[in-house]
């Protein structure tokens, strides 16, 4: 049984190419089924399709690698030749190692991003795995979980909106119920607001020079809209302010705003200034309890956390290597399993034949005793050879040991079949 992978990912394929082979969950499930039951060399199949990759994992007889490759080209449809240079084909341990790295987030655009582990799980559940792909995907999920639990690879935010939300959590003890004021109705403040809201914060007010824009964004958050000139009121009660207008000068600054912030008497306020040129007078950051982050400050935080992710990625690579080694050992042990089974069957055949010869010559009670006794002797005799064979299986001598056992005990490949 061989394992094969054919796929394209963000590393070598443009978005246009990836779009050609992208499939949704239902289509992935259908493709997995058709690959596994089409009568070709493939017996098992799982299709992993995300915005960054589409990969076909197939297990089956010889020729399965080419089968997977053809299936990927067919998926791309007309124009498939353009896909070929961007596609990769891997087999057996290399394919498994790749999957483990994918599950651990090590092959992602942002190292350690957490979404991929769930996507691998979904693909596995929707696919048509058998013994080999089932085991491979379970080990991949285990590698992904270990990478997240045993390293800090997924802890730090990798985008400016996520960094802003994480900074808010460094100031406040949880964001549930925190009041957020948006200044400007641009896309960046929208993304940041959604990130904050996903952590429990409440968008209480949206201020913009064009009130209609503010009203539109406020409606999507169930917040109120206010003219930008009347910000002092919301500022006095807000916990977090996100500002991203296209104004040429400071929108938040001057003595009026400073006195509002001073009146908070040190009550924390996080101001996230996403605008270029800046919306918020940097002098406000000096006021007690006011924490002001502009785009440069946020980018340096994101950059440092990405550096941290890269360091943690080295630890995660070690975990993936351990899991890949376990996979290799498991695959190698499969090579000696038929020899072990044959040896045990051979011994059991001898035992049964000898018991049959005693049939009618032993009282019924004694026969049970002899049956138990001989079974125990056979088990004890075969225990150590079985263990030794399994140990040898993970080394280069595994198949040699299996051949020696076959030769010594007169076992044949037909017996194993």
């Amino acid at each position: 049984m061989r394992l094969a992978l054919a796929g394209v990912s963000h590393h070598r394929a443009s978005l246009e190419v990836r779009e050609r082979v992208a499939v949704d969950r239902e289509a992935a499930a259908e493709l997995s089924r058709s690959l596994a039951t089409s009568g070709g060399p493939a017996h098992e199949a799982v299709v992993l399709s995300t915005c960054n990759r589409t990969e076909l994992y197939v297990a089956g007889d010889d020729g399965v690698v080419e089968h997977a490759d053809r299936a990927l080209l067919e998926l791309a449809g007309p124009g498939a030749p353009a896909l070929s240079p961007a596609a990769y084909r891997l087999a057996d341990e290399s394919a498994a190692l790749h999957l483990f790295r994918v599950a651990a987030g090590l092959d992602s655009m942002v190292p350690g991003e957490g979404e991929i582990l769930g996507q691998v799980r979904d693909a596995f559940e929707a696919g048509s795995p058998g013994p080999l792909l089932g085991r491979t995907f379970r080990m991949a999920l285990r590698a992904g979980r270990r990478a997240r639990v045993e390293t800090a690879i997924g802890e730090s935010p990798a985008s400016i909106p996520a960094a802003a939300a994480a900074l808010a959590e460094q100031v406040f003890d949880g964001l549930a119920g925190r009041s957020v004021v948006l200044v400007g109705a641009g896309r960046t403040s929208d993304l940041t607001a959604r990130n904050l809201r996903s952590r429990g914060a409440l968008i209480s007010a949206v201020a913009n020079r064009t009130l209609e824009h503010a009203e539109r964004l406020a409606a999507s958050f169930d917040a109120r809209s206010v003219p930008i000139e009347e910000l002092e009121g919301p500022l006095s009660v807000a916990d977090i302010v996100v500002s991203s207008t296209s104004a040429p000068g400071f929108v938040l600054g001057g003595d009026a705003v400073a006195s509002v912030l001073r009146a908070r008497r040190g009550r924390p306020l996080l101001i996230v200034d996403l605008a270029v040129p800046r919306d918020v007078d940097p002098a406000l950051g000096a006021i007690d309890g006011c924490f002001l982050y502009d785009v440069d400050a946020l980018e340096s935080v994101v950059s440092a956390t990405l550096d941290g992710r890269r360091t943690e990625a080295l630890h995660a690579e070690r975990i993936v290597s351990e899991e890949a080694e376990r996979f290799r050992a498991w695959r190698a042990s499969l090579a000696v399993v038929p020899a072990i089974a044959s040896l045990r069957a051979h011994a059991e055949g001898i035992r049964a034949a000898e018991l049959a010869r005693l049939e009618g010559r032993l009282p019924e009670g004694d026969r049970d005793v002899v049956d138990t006794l001989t079974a125990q002797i056979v088990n004890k005799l075969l225990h150590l050879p079985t263990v030794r064979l399994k140990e040898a299986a993970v080394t280069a001598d595994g198949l040699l040991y299996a051949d020696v056992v076959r030769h010594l005990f007169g076992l044949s490949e037909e017996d194993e079949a």
Partner: protein
Amino acid sequence: MAELLVWLTVIAYGEAALVYAGELRGHRRYSMLGIWGVRVGWLAQTVLLVAQARSADGFPWGTWAGALNLLSWLLVTGYLVWGCRPRYRLVGLAVMPVAAALVVLAWMGGGTALGSRGDGWALAIHAGLMLAGLASFTVAAAMASLYVFEERRLKRHDATVLRLRLPSLEALDRLAARTTLAGLLLLSAGIIVGLGWLDVGGLDAAMTVAALIWVAYALALAVRWEAGIRGRRFARLLLGGLVLVVAVVPLTHFAA
């Protein structure tokens, strides 16, 4: 055996402090060793205190050196309440060097020896409560120092602020206040026991200092609740309070 336990305690506390210092510099791989150092040291010191209690005739920590020994144990016990949580572990950076130094001072003054002559149990309760109060103030000051450190990182836009995650400012502020309140209640109980059960005579320097500390911390809490002094200013009050304790308590209580 006492010597062995003392040095095991000092080494374990010192190891924890070193690991925490390393964690602060970004070396996170061995951070679990820090909290295990605290646990091992605390267990060793607990065994030492039990051995002292069993071998003494009465309260064995009535001397200044003995009191330091008990104070360091109470300090680490207080820290362990929070320190087991990963985000609060770095409070130990302020607590563990102090605890190790207190044990060394106690050892130098003979406060870790077995078979000492003990004092009455009224003094035991009084001293125990007073020391527990002081330990609480020290833990509160550790949290306050962590608050000041974290606030400075946020204000200065330290790029590593999300790589080394500390408790949020609000949580540190709230827990420092609660620990201070607990310390004040323990100190109050200690003073009441001292006035009620001990033959205190007239007002002496030790009593004056105890009252001064009580008033200082009560004022700190009062301004927090009444005037809304929180955050950095409250943290500075707590750090100032600890400076007061460190400056005057040794002079009035341990000078003999």
